[in-house]
């Protein structure tokens, strides 16, 4: 019922009047069914998260026995302690934040500029340039040639190897271009008629309207960089100052098996000190996803504002 009264402010008064006057029973049914479906979706997606959370706070050996659902059975902070005892933790966290922040801003800015160029309908090289980047999505040179290139470019064993490759990701490019294409051409064209150059149009007119899609792409880039570790391992494996959080966690997780295997396996004294792959994985998942979960609400408002742009009133 509430739903009906709480219209987005942007809808015109007239529409509001019409809507509040007659509450369509079909709409009511729709809202009801919709709520049901979404509640179900929430329930089944929330469960694995809560389960992982519970596991992360549970004693590792105890968790091996299974049967933990939403509440830890034998509470323990050991998993988190182990994670926070990781080598170079501080520098790793700084590097991770740094690469995520730099990549998200730089890659977004650069990709957005190119996608603007490709959204200009009369641009003569639109098609070949698009194809040039589209193909990059489907071809992959493999590990060794890429490594050799980066070494030749003196990127290995530097921080820049995290942010220089992959500046223009074709996927992001296409999503941005599609969004820009779906904006009325009149925005750009009128500015052009008024003599603005493309950089100005991009920065002053197109970019502000594209906030929702920028937020989306920034999120994609940030998540990708936040969770990357393979480049760290391949290009900077032995430099502690260039390590990242995810790489440290990966190392920790892949080592857990060998840690448990050197425990005393026959003694009485194995009292809740062992961590297991499952428990450490759960805690690492929480540590990894939390920053992004915290970041999300800030980006989220751009998706929810919807329905406020595109209002070309003439």
């Amino acid at each position: 019922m509430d739903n009906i009264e709480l219209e987005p402010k942007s809808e015109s008064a007239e529409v509001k009047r019409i809507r509040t006057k007659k509450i369509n029973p079909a709409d009511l049914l729709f809202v009801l069914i919709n709520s049901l479906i979404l509640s179900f979706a929430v329930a089944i997606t929330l469960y694995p998260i809560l389960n992982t959370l519970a596991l992360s706070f549970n004693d590792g050996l105890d968790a091996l026995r299974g049967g933990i659902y939403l509440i830890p059975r034998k509470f323990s902070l050991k998993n988190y302690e182990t994670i926070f005892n990781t080598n170079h933790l501080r520098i790793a966290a700084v590097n991770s934040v740094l690469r995520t922040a730099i990549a998200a801003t730089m890659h977004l800015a650069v990709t957005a500029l190119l996608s603007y160029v490709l959204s200009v309908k009369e641009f003569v090289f639109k098609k070949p340039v698009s194809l040039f980047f589209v193909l990059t999505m489907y071809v992959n040179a493999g590990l060794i040639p890429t490594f050799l290139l980066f070494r030749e470019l003196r990127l290995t064993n530097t921080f820049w190897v995290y942010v220089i490759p992959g500046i223009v990701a074709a996927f992001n490019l296409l999503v941005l271009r599609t969004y820009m294409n779906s904006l009325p051409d009149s925005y750009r064209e009128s500015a052009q008629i008024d003599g603005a150059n493309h950089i100005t149009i991009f920065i002053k007119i197109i970019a502000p309207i594209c906030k929702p899609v920028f937020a989306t792409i920034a999120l994609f880039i940030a998540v990708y960089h936040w969770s990357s570790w393979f480049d760290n391992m391949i290009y900077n494996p032995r430099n502690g100052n260039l390590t990242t959080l995810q790489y440290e966690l990966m190392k920790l997780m892949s080592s857990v098996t060998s840690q448990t295997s050197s425990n005393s396996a026959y003694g009485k004294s194995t009292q809740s000190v062992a961590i297991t792959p499952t428990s450490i994985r759960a805690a690492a998942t929480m540590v990894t996803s939390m920053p992004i979960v915290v970041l999300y609400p800030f980006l989220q408002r751009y998706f929810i504002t919807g329905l406020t742009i595109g209002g070309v009133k003439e």
Partner: protein
Amino acid sequence: MLIERVAGFSDNGHPLLMKGSVAAVTDEKENNSFSAEADSADDIAAKNKADAIKRRELAYTYRSNLAPGNATDEDPGEPLSRAEKRRRKAERSAEPKVKLNKKTLWRQKELIIITIPFILYGFLFYYIPLGGWVMAFQKYKPQNGLFGSEWVGLSVFERILNDKSFQLVFRNTLAMGIINLVLSFAFAIGFALLLNEVRLRRPKKFVQTVSYLPHFLSWIIVVGIIRDMLSMDHGIVNEILVNLGIFDGPVNFFSKPSWFWWIVGFSNVWKETGWNSIIYLAAITAINPEMYEAASLDGAGRFGKMWHVTLPGIRPTIFILLLINLGNVLNVGFEVQYLLTNGIVKSVSETIDIWVLYWGIGQGDFSIGTAAGIFKSVIAIILIFLANGAAKAAGEERLF
């Protein structure tokens, strides 16, 4: 004209735009040569016409999206909508007619200059390493390097394509790729549409935040949970189905080869629906609110608006993602299949990537991995060219 629009916008809270436009106006004075570019009289006339069309389009788009049966009251709508459709299709598929000559190049010099660094970058980082593809034509040994390894021509490809087990994994990969594609599109779009209909801010934010969280769980965690739920031994799915009398006794879901692809498909849906829907939610923000108003005036209900305004509104995004993912149809990965498989369903669960892991990486054979990669690239490129052509013919958004 610009100023008008600025006024319109500032109401909607875009102060930046206002400043920007003023700057744009100043730019005009300083940059005469550029404003000279501002087109012949013909162009302006065409533009005005286009604007007029656009405006008309807004009013009609909604109606044209209605199924004939639904378009009730003001019914010139039906025949007109068909005409509208044809016109829009023509408009979309029409290439802007620009001739490639000196004059055009000069007029578009700014765009070209911006593009050049991108091309250089792309060439350096994406195309030069492709030299490594020669490995597929060699018996590559790291110790001999790319130039010192023995050349074997197409024999690696022959070996792959004639291998019975490769044909099997190709079939599996393709099947799972298609199932995943269809399911993940249907669910992500459906979810975005439904979520968009939630009008209460807090629940909406909550649902959205929850929905994308599983993206951060690794496959190994997700598979563990799926196995728990499908387990014969007190798995919740078996318990429900047995209690409802659908099954006589607990069923081992992983013993049925014909179910395996679907289990993988729905595992994907579970993990990625929320994440995939983010893009659609962003796209929905670009829909012109006037369309909803028009729909309301026509008496459309909530469902009607969702179906006839929101869904068509995100159509370009849907198409572009569809095209992109069509090329990725063979990239179904290996993790989830590897973690869910067992001896009995192995013949349906192995993917190209698992095959490469086993025969290539696991044995240190880089040539076979590269050759399989090239094979996948070629298929992907053929697919996207076909799909792009189809999209062009249909007047939909396309890749290039």
